C-alpha cells in the first residue's frame, strides 16, 4: 500500500498506457524481441555463422523454419541473432545520443546567452545534414564495425536530444523550486543534475522509444549499403543486402529480415506514441 502510494505518478502513467491496446501490443512485441536477443544462444537452433553448402538455398521447411541462405546458414537463427545486434545498436546509440545530447541541451538551456547560442548553432549545423548521411560520413571516417556503427548512429542523433532537453530545461529553470535551490546555495551543476534533469525526463522517454526505431532503421540501412556490420555477423540490414541478389528466386531471404525490421520498428513506434499520450497530462482523462 505504502509502496503503491509513493509510486503513484508512475502508476498513473502505466494505467493510462495500459488502456492503449496498441501501445501494450508494441510493448509485448518489444519484450519478446528483447528476450529473443538476450537468450539467442539458447533459442537459435543453429549457429548463425555455420556454413552448410550442401543445404544452401533451401526454402522454408521443417528443419529450417525460414530456409537457408546462399552459404546454407539458417536464416531463422540469423534473425534471432540479428535481434540481438539490432537492439544493441538501438540501445547503445540512443544511449550515446541521450547522454551527449542531454548534457549539451541542459548546459545550453540552463546557462543561456552565448553558451546556448554556440551549442545550438552547432546543433543546427548537424541538423542540416540528413541523419543517415551524417552517420555514413562518420562511419566512412571511423571505419566499419559494430562499435563505430553505434558511435556514428549515436552522434547523428545528438542534435534531436539536445533540442528536446534544452526546451524542457528552459521551462523548468523558471520554476520556483529552482529559485529555491539557488537560494539554498546549491551549485549550478547540482541544480542541473538533481533538480532540472529529473523533471524533464518525460519528453526524453518518448523520444528515446521513437528514436530507437530510427536508430535501428539507420543501422540496418548502413549495413545494407555495406558500411555497418559485415557478414558473416548476423544483422538484418546485411541479410537484406545479400538476399537482394537472389530476390527473384529466393524471396524469403529478403522477406524475413525485412519483416523483422518492420515489426521491431512498428512496435517501438506504437509504444512511443502510447507513452507520449500517457505522459502528456493534457491528454490524460
Amino acid at each position, binding site marked *: 500500500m*505504502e509502496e503503491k*502510494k509513493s509510486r503513484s505518478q508512475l502508476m498513473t502513467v502505466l494505467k493510462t498506457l495500459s488502456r492503449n491496446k496498441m501501445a501494450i501490443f508494441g510493448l509485448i512485441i518489444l519484450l519478446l524481441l528483447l528476450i529473443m536477443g538476450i537468450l539467442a544462444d539458447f533459442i537459435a537452433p543453429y549457429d548463425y555463422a555455420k556454413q552448410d553448402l550442401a543445404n544452401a538455398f533451401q526454402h522454408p521447411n521443417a528443419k529450417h523454419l525460414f530456409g537457408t541462405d546462399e552459404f546454407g546458414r539458417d536464416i531463422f537463427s540469423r534473425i534471432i541473432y540479428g535481434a540481438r545486434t539490432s537492439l544493441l545498436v538501438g540501445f547503445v546509440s540512443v544511449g550515446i545520443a541521450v547522454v551527449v545530447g542531454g548534457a549539451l541541451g541542459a548546459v545550453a538551456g540552463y546557462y543561456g546567452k552565448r553558451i546556448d547560442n554556440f551549442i545550438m548553432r552547432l546543433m543546427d549545423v548537424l541538423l542540416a545534414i540528413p541523419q543517415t548521411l551524417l552517420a555514413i560520413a562518420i562511419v566512412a571516417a571511423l571505419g566499419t564495425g559494430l562499435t563505430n556503427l553505434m558511435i556514428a548512429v549515436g552522434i547523428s542523433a545528438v542534435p534531436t536530444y539536445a533540442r528536446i532537453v534544452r526546451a524542457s530545461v528552459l521551462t523548468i529553470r523558471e*520554476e520556483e523550486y529552482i529559485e529555491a535551490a539557488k*537560494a*539554498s*546555495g546549491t551549485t549550478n551543476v547540482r541544480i542541473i543534475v*538533481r533538480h532540472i534533469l529529473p523533471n524533464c525526463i518525460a519528453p526524453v522517454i518518448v523520444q528515446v522509444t521513437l528514436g530507437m526505431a530510427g536508430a535501428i532503421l539507420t543501422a540496418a540501412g548502413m549495413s545494407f549499403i555495406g558500411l555497418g556490420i559485415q557478414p558473416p555477423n548476423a544483422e538484418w540490414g546485411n541479410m537484406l543486402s545479400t538476399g537482394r541478389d537472389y530476390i527473384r528466386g529466393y524471396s524469403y531471404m529478403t522477406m524475413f529480415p525485412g519483416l523483422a525490421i518492420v515489426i521491431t520498428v512498428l512496435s517501438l513506434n506504437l509504444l512511443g506514441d502510447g507513452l507520449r499520450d500517457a505522459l502528456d497530462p493534457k491528454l490524460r482523462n
Partner: protein
Amino acid sequence: MGEQNLLDIKNLSVEYKTEDGIVYAVNELNMEIGHKETLGFVGETGAGKTTTAMTIMGLLPTPPGKVTSGEILFDGRDMLKIGDKERRGILGEEISIIFQDPMTSLNPSMKVGDQIVEMIRLHKTISKKDAMEEADRLLEMVGIRRERANDYPHQFSGGMKQRVVIAIALACQPKLIIADEPTTALDVTIQAQVMNLIKGFKEKLGTSMILITHDLGIVAEICDKVAIMYAGQVVEYADVEGIYLNPCHPYTKGLFNSIPKLDTEEEWLEEIHGLPPEPTERIEGCSFSPRCPNCMKICKHKKPGITYIDDRHYVRCFLYENQEVKADE
C-alpha cells in the same frame, strides 16, 4: 546604537531594463534589521518587496535586473560584492527564504525527506544517515510524521508543503529568514497555523526575519519593526507600536483606513484613490503625490527626504519636515 545590525541596507536602487523602458523597482531604499528582530515589509503588489529580497540574496536576475547604487551589509559583508562561492556558503546556511507558493517551491520529483537532507548536506559535512535522522527530526518539529519523509510533494496538502518548506529553511539554523508572503497561497485557517509555527521557531531559535506581507494583522502579531513600501521606496519605517499608534505617512494612514472595522457595519471599504504609478515612469516629486489626500505644492516637484519622528521612526513626507521645524522651535 552601538551594536552592529545583522542586515544593513543603504541607498539601494534596483532597476529592470524592459522593452517598455526602465522599471525603477527599488529607489534609494534604506533599512536595517538587528539580531533576533523581525521586520514586516508591507506594500502593494509591485512595490518592490520581492525585488529587494532577491537582491539581498544576490538572486536578482541580471539582466534584466541591475543594482544601480547602494550596499547591502549582512553581518559585515557586502552581499553585492562577494563572489559566487562565498554567496553559496551564506545562502541556505545563514540566510534562507520561504517562498510564497508552497505548491511550486518544492521539487516534484524528489522525496521531501531527500530535499531536507540535500539542504543539510550542502552546508554541513555529515553522513547521509545522520542527515536523514536530522531531516526526520525537522519534519516532526514542523508537525509532520517522520514516516512521510518518503513521500513526494504531490502527496501533501498546501499547508503541509509549506511546513516542509519551513523545515528546509530552518535546516541549517540560519541567522536570517526571508519569508516572502508565506501564507498568501494558503487558506485562512491554515494561515494561522503556519504563522504560529513560524512565530514559535523564531522565538525558539532566535533568528531574525524579514516578513513580506500584505497583512497588517500578521505584522502586528509577530513583527518588531515595520517598513511600509510604496513605489520602490520605504515611505515609513518604525517600531510596530509607532506604526499602529502613530501612523504618519498618508499612505500608511490609507492602508489602515482600508482595513474593515469589526465593530461597525460598513457597506464600503475605505480605499486609497487611484493606482500605484506605472513603474516605468519616473514621477517628479513624491511618488505618492498623485494619490495623496494631503498633497501640497512642494510634493509635485520635490522628492521628500527622510524625516525622523523619533529616533526609531522615520517617514518620507513633506508634512512632517515642517513639523520637525516646529518641534525645534
